[in-house]
């Protein structure tokens, strides 16, 4: 049993499928996630694979300041991700609303009100290296011994 668990832990730390969802960002954090794909940062050498399909994802990167249309759509999207799963908030917007969190704004942040957020990467926008190290740091700890912790 524990051998199997060890194998699962090892596999899960080496193969992380990522989906990202933009809930009203300025595109700044969005393109920094895209930049992670570039051969310079080479996100795939760590086993992180970015594709935008929530049904195959382990980790959801949430970008943006939570605009009203996403209030019902984001939890629905979150429900579609199979367990074990984790959400990471990228940038200031999902954390605090950034510069948009002011009088007369439309945003309804923070994102943590709607889905559980495992980690936050502050910055406006964060550097690709910061995003990369956050995903690498979060994934093994969140998914470690998932079956044991669940029971």
């Amino acid at each position, binding site marked *: 049993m524990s051998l199997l668990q060890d194998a699962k832990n090892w596999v899960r730390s080496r193969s992380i499928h990522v989906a990202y*969802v*933009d*809930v*009203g*960002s*300025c*595109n*700044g*954090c*969005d*393109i*920094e996630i*895209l*930049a992670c*794909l*570039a*051969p*310079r940062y080479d996100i795939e050498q760590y086993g992180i694979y970015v*594709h*935008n*399909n*929530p049904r195959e994802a382990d980790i959801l990167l949430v970008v*943006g*300041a939570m*605009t*009203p*249309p*996403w209030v019902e*759509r984001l939890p629905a*999207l979150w429900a579609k991700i199979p367990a074990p799963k984790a959400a990471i908030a990228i940038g200031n917007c999902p954390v605090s609303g*950034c*510069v*948009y969190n*002011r*009088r*007369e*704004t*439309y*945003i309804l942040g923070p994102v943590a009100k709607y889905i559980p957020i495992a980690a936050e990467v502050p910055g*406006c*926008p964060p*550097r690709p290296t910061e995003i990369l190290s956050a995903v690498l740091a979060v994934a093994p700890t969140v998914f470690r011994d998932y079956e044991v912790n669940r029971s």
Partner: protein
Amino acid sequence: MKRVVDVSIPLGPVHPCWKEPARVKCETRGEKVLSAEVELGYMKKGIERIMRGRPWQEVMFLAERVCGICSVIHNMVFIEGMEAVSGITVPDRAAYLRVVMNELDRIQSHLLANFSYCYTIEHETLAMYLLNTRERAMDCMERIAGVRVNKAYMIPGGVRFDLRDTDRALLLADLAHLEDSVHRYGRMFDTGPLIATRSKGVGILMQEQARIARAVGPTARASGIAEDVRLTHPTYRKLAFTPIVRTEGDNHARIMLRFDEIFQSLGLIRQCLHDLPAGPIRGGGTCGAGETVSRGEAPRGELSYFIRSDEYGRILDIAIRTPSIPNIDACTHHMLPGVTSLADVTSVFVSADPCIACNER
């Protein structure tokens, strides 16, 4: 009028090819797209509402965050508007540095747009080459402004940081490298036979259609409309700028036009660095009351800010017209109908380089 429609296919808002949430609804018969409609509203943050009653040092950051991809031009157009309102003159050196920064931003934005297109037609090799080339342009900007995206480089009366001689030499070396790689990848795109099947003759926007939809920027210039707001900008006029025009109006023309514009931008930066006058980078001056419309050429087309301010330089009223609004209209109403395969819908949409964050603010 009753039409025979097989299926109405929605694409998005969360779609592997879309970088931002938007829904494109396509009415199809078989594989052929009869008509398309875009459904927006997923990104509305109310930036113009937040801007009201705030001084330039806050609105500048909000303007940048209208769009994170082309943030420099938003900053530039807003600041130039405030300068026009308050009668602030910019030192020559600062004006040239602004053009350098703006053109670097255009290069990275065009490379990103071409990356998205290559990624959408599943030519991942070329896409990754382009994305890696873009990192070099980002490095250039980071060396000047200290940050990769949302640079906050321009302030009323000048720019924030000067260009050092050591950085200038590094910048020129990087430009040479950029030119080499973009030349290679541009040729790969132009001559690649598989790329040609996916791009040539797909998503055609005729010149009349482009005029009806009031398309701007590379989308219009690829359809034979020689319009560029840089023609009226004083600094660009000193640099003897002329726009590049292509007449085919298909996906291939739009992407190749962006490659050509990258070379043009490289030339403009070199010219700026050559002519760069010595002197101060900030002229001072406080913002005052007035009303103006400030225009500039964003990587995606004409961007205009209507600004009205009070006597302390605070924004009373502001209206932003971003280039993606007419381009998305041109894309959904003129390019998408008649597309023969659903697989081309995403690539046609991406080839117009729509920026949803710009569009909705």
